[in-house]
């Protein structure tokens, strides 16, 4: 999985490409988000436009860091999850925990 991190308007914008699943992808994203939290950045936007599938490990990671960011006064917001990712999140009952946006700008602006 490719993970690209940028900072815009005090928001960490994390762009993913590939399957978010147990192994290198989940480990890599965990490391990136832990670094962000360690640096005091708790306002995170995760662009999932190029993530065709999220497995239960990936879902667990998202749920855990949603809680972590909220505890620090921030949040973890999702951008453009695929139809199948939305279906999966809905299946396990976590879809409505997340704020979901059509594009990065809208997600970043929502933190203002």
């Amino acid at each position, binding site marked *: 999985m490719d993970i690209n991190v940028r900072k815009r308007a005090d928001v960490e914008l994390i762009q993913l490409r590939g399957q978010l699943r147990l192994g*290198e992808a989940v480990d890599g994203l965990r490391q990136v988000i832990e670094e962000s939290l360690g640096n005091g950045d708790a306002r995170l936007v995760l662009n999932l436009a190029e993530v065709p599938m999220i497995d239960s490990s990936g879902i667990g990671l998202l749920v855990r860091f949603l809680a972590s960011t909220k505890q620090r006064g921030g949040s973890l917001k999702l951008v453009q999850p695929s139809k199948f990712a939305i279906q999966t999140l809905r299946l396990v009952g976590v879809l409505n925990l997340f704020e979901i946006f059509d594009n990065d700008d809208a997600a970043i602006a929502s933190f203002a």
Partner: protein
Amino acid sequence: MSPNPRHNGKGTNFSDLLEFHVPADSKAIGNVTDRIIEALEGLGIAEEKRLEIQLAVQEALANAVVHGCKNDPTKEIHCRVQADPGPGFSPDRLADPKTAERVQADHGRGIYLIRELMDEVSFQGGGNQITMRKY
């Protein structure tokens, strides 16, 4: 990963089986599911169904690595894909991960997802084996 040398997984004759022996390492799972998806794509199976099968297989292998083998890469997982696997039985339903107590947990959704995504799921060998069917 050591796939069965008789089948490369890229042909369209899916009555032949795909068979993999992989170390119980989370990093090895993706290679297996990617190969299975290539085979399904070769059969012309629709993307939505391919993703459902891929996710179900991913969850089954992840459970084998994490819970079955305790992440010990010296252990080996056997994955076999057939056009017409043998009969099984329906296990009792597991706890619903959507309940208020469980929805924010960071684990416990894998088997639930498998059962939701596949048409038939059965366990054999005291839980060491899982058989999944998608029509």
